[in-house]
């Protein structure tokens, strides 16, 4: 790229400021769309992930299935496997496991739980519920129950329970009222409602009942063991890898949240693909715009190009001038577009604070540099064909015209 080509390309752009500005604003608009889509798609993915993983355990540890192993699978004999249901599914020895889990890198919270099914009675109404017995101080380790309390308090005395707002609504319950709860083991007991929470997850708000760990032990006939250990990890996307390590170190069955939420990932994938298509169209628009503008400019400047060629300018110089001009339009337009997009997205709240109805736009995922690089590249490619056409102009014909 000779310095003279650079000079002529700049000079032409500067000599026609209105035309150059118009072309660059077109590019800037395309780049703005590109960045906006990146930020929106990225923000949506973050929001959905946040909302999904916010109230659920990232990894659940349970006792592995005790089905007998087939010793000689290739023997040719007919084997009949029967599930071993003779013993309760529980983690009998769990106290030594907790410190092992807590020592694992990335683990931020560990909550041993007693779990079981039950139904609540109120008058003639019955409602099935899932009881979660949590250890003192670990109530909000998995889902932020304390922050979700809408009525009453989050204190859990031995005869207290916390219920979801939908269940309260269905049965017409209020804080302080007494409720009878019968467990799947046939044990029944009355509890006073200490508080009502709204997590925003319908199933939890309708069916989850939180109670004290020791109280749950009695209700579900689990004097020493526990049902499961739920843990949170940071970052949530590492859950599968951490789960694999915990499986080896504890010997327990581990389930990462990613396994149970494949639909979410499919959705996010489809969303990302849609975003890519829209971004590709934005780029194509830029390419078509620049290519047609360059072609028009070349037709208009035919005599100029002819005279330069007649005066000894090489084809290479002519190609350089036009490719450079198109690339400059793309680059400057892209930088301006990225800057404006950055300023526009700047005052928007972070995704975690987006209120419902608002667009979850994540400025950090705006792909600003990628947008500038791709647009500049696209502009350079868009100018190559018109530039080659310019170099093929016959000086004799061009000067004659």
């Amino acid at each position, binding site marked *: 790229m*000779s*310095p*003279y*080509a650079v*000079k*002529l390309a700049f*000079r*032409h752009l500067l*000599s026609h400021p209105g035309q150059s500005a118009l072309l660059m604003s077109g590019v800037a608009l395309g780049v703005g769309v590109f960045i906006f889509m990146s930020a929106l798609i990225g923000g949506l993915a973050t929001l959905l992930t946040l909302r999904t993983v916010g109230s659920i355990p990232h990894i659940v540890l349970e006792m592995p299935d005790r089905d007998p192993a087939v010793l000689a699978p290739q023997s040719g004999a007919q084997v009949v496997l029967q599930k071993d249901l003779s013993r309760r599914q529980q983690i009998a020895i769990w106290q030594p496991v907790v410190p092992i889990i807590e020592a694992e890198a990335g683990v931020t919270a560990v909550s041993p739980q007693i779990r079981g099914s039950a139904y609540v009675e109120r008058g003639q109404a019955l409602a099935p519920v899932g009881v979660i017995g949590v250890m003192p101080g670990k109530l909000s380790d998995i889902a932020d129950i304390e922050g979700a309390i809408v009525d009453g308090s989050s204190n859990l005395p031995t005869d207290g329970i916390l219920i979801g707002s939908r269940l309260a609504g269905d049965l017409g319950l209020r804080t302080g009222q007494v409720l009878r709860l019968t467990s799947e083991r046939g044990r029944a007991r009355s509890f006073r409602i200490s508080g009502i929470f709204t997590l925003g997850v319908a199933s939890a708000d309708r069916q989850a009942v939180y109670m004290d760990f020791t109280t749950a032990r009695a209700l579900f006939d689990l004097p020493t063991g526990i049902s499961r250990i739920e843990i949170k990890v940071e970052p949530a996307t590492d859950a599968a890898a951490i789960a694999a390590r915990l499986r080896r170190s504890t010997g327990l069955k581990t389930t990462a949240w990613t396994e149970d939420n494949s639909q979410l990932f499919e959705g996010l994938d489809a969303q990302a693909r849609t975003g890519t298509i829209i971004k590709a169209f934005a780029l194509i628009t830029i390419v078509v715009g620049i290519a047609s503008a360059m072609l028009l400019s070349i037709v208009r400047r035919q*005599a*100029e190009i*002819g*005279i*330069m*060629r*007649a*005066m*000894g*300018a*090489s084809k290479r*110089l002519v190609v350089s001038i036009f490719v450079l001009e198109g690339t400059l339009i793309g680059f400057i337009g892209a930088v301006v577009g990225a800057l404006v997009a950055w300023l526009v997205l700047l005052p928007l709240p972070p995704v975690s604070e987006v209120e419902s109805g608002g667009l979850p736009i994540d400025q950090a995922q705006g792909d600003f540099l990628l947008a500038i690089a791709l647009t500049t590249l696209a502009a350079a490619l868009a100018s190559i064909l018109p530039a080659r056409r310019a170099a093929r102009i016959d*000086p*004799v014909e061009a*000067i004659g015209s």
Partner: protein
Amino acid sequence: MSAEPILSVRDLTKVFGEGEAQAKVLKGIDLTMAPGEMAALLGPSGSGKSTLLTILGTLMRASGGRHEMLGVDLMQASDAERTAFRSRHLGFVFQFHHLLPDLTALENVMMPAAAAAGRESRAMRERAAELLDAVGLADRRDYRPGALSGGQRQRVAVARALINQPVLVLADEPTGNLDRQAADQVMQLIRSINQTLATSFLISTHDEHIAGQCPRRIELLDGRIVRS
């Protein structure tokens, strides 16, 4: 002629089209030019003046014959060699000035040298300033063509033709677009350059008044030289 000719053309022909539609525009041109010669090329429209100048300027190839300049066989040379030759040894002045509208007068004069070198240099700038001085436009060097009169533009075009110190300047109706006074100024300029720099000029024209100012007269009729 005492010195070696700079240009030598023998039996040069140019045919456009093929078959029925074939048109023979040049029908065997023999022509030589000596260093420092100034010749007018006369002939009615369609006699082949522009075609001959275009071929001599290496902007188009002849169909047949020999075309040599400064000992280089231009019939055999490649396109790139012809472009390089053109930029080094030939200058052009056209009927329409064809100055680049985005460049100043000084930059326009420098253009052929800068295009060949790929950059502008201080030496080019100084030489272009001298040439603009010589064509009487020292005070217009930073003006763009749009701000100059027709005669001034054509004088810038003459200066541009001289930047690479060509051996031969080919001028196609250089005053065809100018009024008498401006035309006389341009011709006076060409004569003085021809005398001081010993640059050869071949000037095509319709105008007897212009032809009268050239020591040599070449007349073209129907693709043949009838007087030289």
